[in-house]
Structures are given as structure tokens and as C-alpha cells.
């Protein structure tokens, strides 16, 4: 396998500025500001407790342990008093720390849950053209790994980041109050520090963006292989799949190593800043003390504050890679969340008295970047009419249905349902009105009942009727829990024909105004098929139906048969007319006869 499994490196071209990403993150955090604030306050308590403990120790030493003037018993009881305070402080610190973790986890999870839900809802609302181009694995990666990545930043960084900035600011303020000159000198270190951070930030984001792309590519690949393993094994393609996987895996490693190399440079550089300023202060400051221009106390204080000042800087730099990685994930997520290519929303119109009239008017259509599939396709179906579409594979039969369902927009021409253009119809209504048994059957991992009702409110009587019509009896008799048997992945495996029967029951259960069967009985034996035909004959009466099939026995009873060829209608008429006309349909019949 050597195709481009990453498809395109990006979900779509384009990127956000760092500011734009942070703005979006903050908007999502805002509803939870109280929790975040609580977490910050709790973390201040933790910091306070951490500072109070050395102070208590110092107090114990100064006041009691070294207080030779006091009686030993008094000294001991003094120590015990402090010990009580000590215990209380330590316990408070512990409790605050515990609650900080829990509070932060809770609001982090809630924020990420919201984000995940919004993203899922957005993705699932996008049109089929979007899904044609996106590997499923990548979308899944955005919803799982990328969100997880953001969560990681949220719980392990946000509050500490806040504290560190607070600490830095406090030190600068204290310093400015104590010794404005020293503070000024120290502040001189800030511009290069920020410049450096910004520079690394930009590089890091590019690196992490690359990593997100390889992670998504790897996930898509693993997922695709896991889905098609039986074929890979039968065709002995393991080695090739393996070497393609190795390539992706190596790409991912190389990009991660590159990121490590960059951060291996960045963090020590920050440290070097601190050490170098210490060295300069010792040399220049020391000389000034010797010259009598500066007091030794000031020098000592200065050295102390350099340490204090760089402590948070160092800690922030430690977290910097987590932040950058999360920002890269956030960028992917927000780009996807703001993808504009949506389903045609339509005008939300609903026909006043839907009867099931369908009209294709000179419709031309090409899939994204492909050749024209439909060329001036025109077809008018009266309410209640059953029209069969036949024609060679690839002639555009399924495409006609795709357009009628509003999955894709026609390039030219118009499609009307009961006189209203599909573009203007409410898609939810339209899809409820049309009952589609698509060519590719899909079974959800759920009970048989759920697979048929799909959560719609369908009475037991109606359910029993569709089960009967779709000939599910023999299948149900083999299922120990009947309709409540779990099927699909993790449940009972069904045969392809059984899946089609369920898809049929599903479509019938919606009591559709237009029923579409797209090769819906291709995997069903003819005996069962004719039983189904009889069973749904009453349902079909008075309903519009479009039946696509290759077996002519399936279509011959239709009111009208339409023969498609290369995106156009080649001929149409009743079975008898067409057979007599000596055109393509007659040739198809002849072809079948030749087999005898």
C-alpha cells in the first residue's frame, strides 16, 4: 500500500494565529470561570501552606528551641503548640491540593465534553462531499486524541501558568518598590526572554502541527487496516502494509524527535539566562561593591531575587511544550469546528400536502473534481407511481438518489419534490419523507429493534408489520432474544442478505411517502424477494417508489422502467413496451436469454 494515507496533511488549508486560538479557548473556558477561580484560590492556599511551613519551622527554632531563657517544659509545650499549627497547615495544604485537582479535573472534563459534543455535532452535520475526502480515522483523532491533548494542558498547566505569572509579577513589583534600579536591570532580561519564547513558540507550533498530522495519519492507517484485516491477510499483503506502517511510524518518530531537539534547546537556554545573569551580577555587581558604589546587602538581595524571578520562568518553560502541543491540537479542532462547507441548509420549507411527486429537470452533476456523472437527466415521477431504474453499473443510478436526498447539490438543473426544489426543502423533513434502502447496508451496533426503529417512536403493531413485510421471521427465530438481540460489531454477525432485510424494515418503519430501493435485494434470494414483493405490495399502493435493480424480475412489475446509460435516460416505458421496442432493454432481456 503506497497511496497517500495521510490524504492531505491538513484538514483544509489555512491556520489560525496564536491569538485567535487563545481567544477561542478562553471563550470556552469562560462559562467555567468560577471553577477556574476556585482552583486558582485553592492553589494559592497550597502555595501559602508551602510558604507557611518553613516559617513555622523558623518560628519554632527562634522562639522555643533556641530560647535559652525559657524553662525546658515551656519550650517543649511551645514546640507542641507550633506542631499543632504545623499539622493544621499541612492538612489544609493537602486538602486544598486534593480539591484543586478534583475541581480542575471536573471543569476541564466539562469544558472538553462540551467541545467534543460541539465538534461531533458539527462534523456529523457536514455534507457527504466532506466525508468523501476525509479519512474517518482523522476525524476520530480530532475528537479523541486532540481533545485529550487540550485537556492535558488544561489540568496540568492553566492554573500553574496563572500562578507563575502572578508570582513573576509580584516579584517585579516588590523589587521595584525595594530597589527600582535593580528591578530595571532585571526587567532588561525580559525582552530577549520574550523574544526567544516567541521565536520558539512559532517553531514549536509548526512542529506540533506536523505531529498532529502524522498522528492522524497513523490512526487512520491503523484503523483502515484493522477494518480490512481479513483481505490483507488473504492476499498476503501483510509485509507491504507493515512497511507502509513503518514509514508512517518513522515519520511520526522523526517529527517527535525534532520537537524534542527544539525543546531540549529551549529549556536549557532559559536556564542559561539565569546562570549567565548570576555570573554577570557577581562580576559587575561585586566590583561595584568593592568600589563602594553598592552595599553587599543589595548584592545578596539581588542574587536572591534573580533566583526567585527565574524560578517561575523555568517552570513555565517546562510546561511550554505541553502548551504548544495543545495549541496545535486546538488549532485543528477549531478549524474543523468552523468548517463552513455545510449541508445545504435549505429554506426549511415543507410542501403543504406532500404527495410524493418527483421531478428531475435537466440535471447535470459531477462529483468533486470528477467527470460528469449525470448529463441533462430529466425524469418526472407522478405521486403513487413505481418507477424502476436499470442500467449498467456506474451509469449514475445511485447518484440520482444521492441528489434526490439532497446529499449533493446538482451542478445544473433542478430537482423538485412536490413542486419544491430540494435545495429549499427542510432536509430533516425530506429525509423522513423518503425511505431509503441504500446499496451499502449499514448496521449499527445495537439491538435489532433499535436498528429498525432508529429511535423513532414506532408502535409495536407497526413494528410487527414491518418485521413481517421484510420477512425477518426466519432470522428472528434464530435469535434467542428476538428483536432485543444485539447485532453488529460486538453482537451477532448477520449475513449480507439479513442486513438488507433489516435495512428494508428500517425504511418501511418510517412510513415514507417515497420509498427508494437501491439494489435493496441484491443479496437476497429470489424466493424471499418475491415474498417481500407480495408483502409490500399493499404498502406500495398509492406510494411513490423508485426501484433500482439489476435482476429484471425485480423491476418488471414497475409502472415504468427507465433505462439509464452514462448519466442519461436511454429509454423508458413499461416492461412490455420496452421489450417490444427492440431497444436497449430488449437487448438486456436478450442478453439474459442467451444464457439459456
Amino acid at each position: 500500500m503506497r497511496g497517500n494515507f495521510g490524504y492531505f496533511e491538513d484538514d483544509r488549508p489555512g491556520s489560525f494565529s496564536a491569538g485567535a486560538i487563545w481567544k477561542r479557548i478562553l471563550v470556552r473556558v469562560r462559562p467555567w470561570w468560577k471553577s477556574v477561580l476556585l482552583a486558582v484560590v485553592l492553589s494559592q492556599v497550597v502555595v501559602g501552606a508551602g510558604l507557611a511551613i518553613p516559617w513555622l519551622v523558623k518560628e519554632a527554632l527562634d522562639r522555643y528551641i533556641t530560647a535559652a531563657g525559657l524553662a525546658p517544659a515551656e519550650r517543649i509545650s511551645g514546640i507542641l503548640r507550633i506542631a499543632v499549627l504545623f499539622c493544621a497547615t499541612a492538612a489544609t495544604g493537602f486538602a486544598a491540593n486534593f480539591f484543586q485537582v478534583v475541581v480542575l479535573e471536573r471543569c476541564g472534563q466539562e469544558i472538553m465534553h462540551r467541545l467534543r459534543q460541539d465538534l461531533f455535532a458539527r462534523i456529523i452535520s457536514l455534507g457527504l462531499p466532506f466525508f468523501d475526502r476525509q479519512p474517518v480515522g482523522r476525524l476520530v483523532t480530532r475528537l479523541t486524541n486532540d481533545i485529550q491533548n487540550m485537556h492535558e494542558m488544561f489540568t496540568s498547566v492553566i492554573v500553574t501558568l496563572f500562578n507563575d505569572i502572578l508570582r513573576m509579577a509580584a516579584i517585579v513589583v516588590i523589587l521595584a518598590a525595594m530597589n527600582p534600579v535593580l528591578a530595571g536591570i532585571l526587567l532588561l532580561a525580559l525582552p530577549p526572554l520574550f523574544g526567544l519564547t516567541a521565536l520558539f513558540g512559532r517553531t514549536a507550533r509548526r512542529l506540533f502541527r506536523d505531529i498532529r498530522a502524522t498522528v492522524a495519519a497513523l490512526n487512520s492507517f491503523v484503523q483502515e487496516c484493522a477494518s480490512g484485516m481479513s483481505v490483507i491477510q488473504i492476499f498476503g499483503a501483510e509485509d507491504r502494509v507493515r512497511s507502509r506502517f513503518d514509514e508512517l511510524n518513522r515519520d511520526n518518530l522523526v517529527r517527535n524527535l525534532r520537537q524534542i531537539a527544539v525543546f531540549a534547546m529551549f529549556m536549557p537556554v532559559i536556564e542559561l539566562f539565569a546562570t549567565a545573569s548570576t555570573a554577570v551580577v557577581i562580576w559587575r555587581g561585586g566590583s561595584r561593591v568593592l568600589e563602594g558604589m553598592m552595599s553587599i546587602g543589595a548584592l545578596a538581595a539581588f542574587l536572591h531575587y534573580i533566583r526567585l524571578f527565574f524560578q517561575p520562568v523555568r517552570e513555565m518553560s517546562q510546561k511550554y511544550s505541553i502548551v504548544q502541543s495543545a495549541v496545535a491540537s486546538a488549532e485543528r479542532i477549531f478549524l474543523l469546528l468552523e468548517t463552513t462547507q455545510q449541508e445545504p441548509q435549505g429554506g426549511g420549507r415543507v410542501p403543504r400536502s406532500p404527495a410524493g411527486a418527483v421531478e428531475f429537470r435537466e440535471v447535470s452533476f459531477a462529483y468533486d473534481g470528477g467527470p460528469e456523472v449525470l448529463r441533462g437527466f430529466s425524469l418526472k415521477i407522478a405521486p403513487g407511481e413505481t418507477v424502476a431504474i436499470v442500467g449498467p453499473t456506474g451509469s449514475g443510478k445511485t447518484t440520482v438518489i444521492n441528489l434526490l436526498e439532497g446529499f449533493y447539490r446538482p451542478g445544473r438543473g433542478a430537482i423538485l419534490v412536490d413542486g419544491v426544489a430540494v435545495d429549499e426543502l427542510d432536509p430533516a423533513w425530506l429525509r423522513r419523507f423518503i425511505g431509503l434502502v441504500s446499496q451499502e447496508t449499514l448496521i449499527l451496533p445495537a439491538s435489532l429493534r433499535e436498528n429498525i426503529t432508529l429511535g423513532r417512536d414506532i408502535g409495536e403493531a407497526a413494528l410487527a408489520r414491518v418485521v413481517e413485510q421484510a420477512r425477518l421471521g426466519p432470522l428472528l427465530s434464530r435469535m434467542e432474544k428476538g428483536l432485543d438481540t444485539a447485532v453488529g460489531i460486538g453482537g451477532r454477525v448477520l449475513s449480507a442478505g439479513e442486513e438488507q432485510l433489516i435495512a428494508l424494515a428500517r425504511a418501511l418503519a418510517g412510513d415514507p411517502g417515497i420509498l427508494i430501493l437501491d439494489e435493496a435485494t441484491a443479496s437476497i434470494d429470489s424466493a424471499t424477494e418475491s415474498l417481500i414483493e407480495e408483502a409490500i405490495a399493499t404498502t406500495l399502493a398509492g406510494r411513490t417508489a423508485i426501484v433500482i435493480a439489476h435482476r429484471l424480475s425485480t423491476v418488471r412489475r414497475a409502472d415504468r422502467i427507465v433505462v439509464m446509460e452514462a448519466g442519461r435516460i436511454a429509454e423508458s416505458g413499461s416492461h412490455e413496451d420496452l421489450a417490444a421496442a427492440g431497444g436497449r432493454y430488449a437487448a438486456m432481456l436478450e442478453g439474459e436469454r442467451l444464457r439459456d
Partner: protein
Amino acid sequence: MNPETKRRLRLLFSLFRPRLAALAAGFAALLAVDAMQLFIPRVIRDAVDGIAAGSADEQSLFRQGLVIAALGCGVFVCRYGWRRLILGASRQVERDLRARIFDAVLGLDAPFFHKNPPGSIVALASNDLNAVQMACGMGLVALVDAVVMTLACIGFMLAMHPFLTLIAVAPLPFLALATALLSARLHHRFAAAQKRFAELSEFCRQSFAAIRLVKAAGIEARQTRAFGRIGRSYIRDNLRLATVQGALFPFSGLMGNLCLLLVLLAGGRLVIEGAVSVGELVAFISYLFMLTWPMMAFGWVAGLFQRGMTSLSRIMKVLDSRPVMAEPSEPLPLPAMDKGVRIELSGLNLDSGPGRRLLEGIELSAGPGLLGIAGPTGAGKSLIAAVVARILPVADGCLFINGVDANRISPAAWRGLVAFVPQHSLLFADTVRANIALGRPDAGLAEIEAAARAAAIHDEIMAMPAGYETVIGERGVSLSGGQKQRLALARAILSDKPVLVMDDPLSAVDAATEQEIIANLRKIFRNRTCIVASHRFSLFEEADRVVVIERGRVTDRGSHRELAARNPWYAMVAARQAMDLKP
């Protein structure tokens, strides 16, 4: 140490072994950083002392500044070194472990994939692997750092005052015990959260893979709600996890404070009794302060390691999985095939779960030539095809090739003999050409085209934007149903195996194309063994023999004509399909 932990450690060691040198160098650099960092404050103190004592001059200060700067550079280099070496090694371990997971998955068969859907395998190879990598990278660094710092501090303390040291370390066994208990909890809760994460991935995957159903049925909102429910459970799992995690990390800090308190009480008394000088106690306590950070780091590391271990055991479950169709202990060579291949099924029973018989007493023999399998929907035709393709395992003595039991032949060797067209055409997001050449990567374009012609798809491929180099979407989304089917057929034809198993291969193909393909296949049927399950009886007219399967049993067998004349079900289907012929 329980055997489970031992096995995990053995696995980790085997992953680390190729990188021991890099790791050793990395940790040496890490220790050097620690040492140099302890040294810098001394230089500073000397300098300040010198200034205070008036013994310093411009030159000595410059020298001391230079020493500090040099040490700073040394720290820089060593730090850069360990980050690249140790973190790099952890990424390489990640890569290797991912490759092992993938290898294991490549070797597994249908029963495994039934229990482990693709989404959960992806979660394993991303999310769980991430937890392992974190433990192997920053976790290991923090651990070594903490151990070194702790040992150094305890060493200094011991040298200073053994009795106080004993008191200081007295709470440590409790810390160890509590950490062990909390870790065990963490294990269960983290395992639950990871499992839920896999569920989340799989749900997304299914929803997007079934997007056409979701759209056509208008169940977007329902899916979103269901996704939200899993998400809610995930939140709950993580909160349960956070209560352990939230306790584990600060708890070690709390224990550190307890050590401090004990020393303060005992040491204070000793000072008051005059047994210890104040200076000694202050120095001792300053070491204890130095211990606070590594103690807290232990809590953090314990959490990280437990997560890593939990994820590792989830991964090992896959690594330990064995295919049901394992390599036989003494594989027999393939039998001679110069007179053609004969596949026999004898007394084949297939169950899925107790009392759920899918196939019962299947007796049939195929080849050379064409064997047709007919039967109603859900009768078991696909099951027989899957058994012959060795997708589904069978018991000994059920499946034979030229008289040799399939279970005595290596599955890979068997697959080398059989080409398969599955009922659901499984295609990959790759070029048309690569999809056809899946079984024969060395095939030239001429051969590929010939196979495509035989499957009557060549012209349509040429009409695609890039011909044979056109990339088809995932699972072939950009193709029509019949095109997918014929690509799968071309793939099987190209692979040129002595046995061809086809499961309803032409169901989405129109009659004219079907005739064309059958005419092409006729040449292939002649010198090969073909087994075809189908609902289209036109194929069976070519067959040497047709068996009828009903409810998992063979109920009839004979030629197409015989069955059409004798078997009521067969006759009815044949008549209906013949109805097409009469205008």
C-alpha cells in the same frame, strides 16, 4: 513481584535494551546537571564571602563569574544531552511498541476482531501508548532525579546525625504502603477510563463510517446524544480517577511534612536537652527541606507509572492474543497439486456460542472445476466461503486440501493457495492500481489491465480522472457498488491462485456485464478450483456441481439442470429468474 508485573517489566526491558547506551549517557548527563547545580551556589557563596571579607578583587570576581558561566554552559550542554537522549529513547520505545502492536494485530484473525473493533485498536495504539511513553520519558527522569536527590539528602543526614535520620525516615514505610494502596485503586480506575476512551473512539468511528445511514435516516441528533452519553460516562470515570490521583500526589508531600514535624519535635527536644547544637538542627532541617520536592515527585511519578503500567497491560492483552488459527506445531508441506486441487469439507460443524449451531454436518467436495453454493438468505453460504478462505477457524478433520487436513498446514501457506472475493468488497484508500495489485505487488501494468479487463472494469477505470492511478476514497467511497465489486474481483483474478472462492461476486453488476464476466471467468474455471456462493443462478449453469444449503445444512446437490428439475426451492428461484426472459 507478581508474574504479571514481571512480564511487563520484561517487555519494557526488551524495548529499552537496544537503547541502553543512550539511556546510560542520558542519565550520566542528568546526574552531571544535578552535581553542577549543587556546585554553583557554592561559588556564589564563596564570592559573596570574599566580598564581605574584603579578600576579593576585580580579577577574582571575574574568575568566579567565569566559573559560574562555565558551569552554566556545562549545565546547558548536559541538559540538552539528557533531554535528547532520554526523551528521544522514550519516543523510540513508543515507536517500537506501536510496531509490536501493529505486528500482533496483523497476525490475528476474525475472533479477535469481533471482540476488538478498529476504534479500540486505534485507541490502544495512540492513547494507551501515550501513557506508556510518558512513564518511560518524563516519568523515568523524575524518578531518577528524585531517587538521587533523596539518597544524597539521606546520605548527608546520616553522616550528620543517624538517630534524627532514623526518625525522619520513620514515616516512609507508611508512604510506601499508602502509595501501593492508592496505586491499586488508580489502576482500576484508570483502566476503566481508558476503556471508556476506546469506546468513545469506536463510537465516533462507527458514526462516521455509517454517515450515509445517519444522513438518510436523519439520526444526527440521536447519534450526538448517544455520543454525549458515552462522554458523560467518560467524565464520571475521570472524576473517579481524579479523586485517587488528587490524593496520591499531595499525600507524599504530606508525608514529607510529617517527617519534618517529627524531626522538629525530636530535634527540638534534643536541642533543649543539649544533645544537639542548634546549628546542627538547622542544617539537618535544611536538608529535609531539600527532600520535600523529591518526596512530592514520588507521588507524581507513582501516578505516572501506574498509568503507564495499566496501559501497558491493556496493550499486552493484544500482544498476548494468539490467532485461533495458529501455526500448527509441525506444519505439513503442501500436497502435490499437479493434478489440480480438491477441497473437501467433511462433517463440518460450526457454532457461535453454546447451542447456536450455524453449520451442521457439511459434506462437500470441490474441484477441479466450479462448485456452486445456493441457498436462501442466512443459510450459511458465506460461512462456508469464509471457512474455505480460512477466515473462520474450524476443528481438526473438517477441511482438507488434496487429502491433507487444513489445520496441519500453516495458515499463511493456505492463503497462498486461495484467492477470495468477499461479499462486502473491502477496498483501501489507495490507487486503483494498488487495490488490484494487493496480492501481487510485482505485477506489471499489462497484467493488472488484463485482470481488470477480465472483471470488465478496465474501461471504467480508464474513464476515471487519473486512470489506474486514481486514488479511491476510504472503503472505495468514490465508486459505485458494481465498480467496487469488480475491483475486488479483478484483485482476486490477478492474484492467480489455484483456488478461487467468491461470495456473491456479481450481485451489484448488471446482467450484460455479468455475462461478459462469466464468459471471461469460464477460462479461469477450467483449470482451477472455484467455489462460488451466489443468488444469481446464471453462474451455476457453468458449474460442475451445485449444493443447496438450507439452515446450515446441505439439503441437496446436483447439476444446475438436475436441481432445477428436482428441488422445489431451487426450481422456484430458477423459474423466477427465468421469468426475466419472457417479455
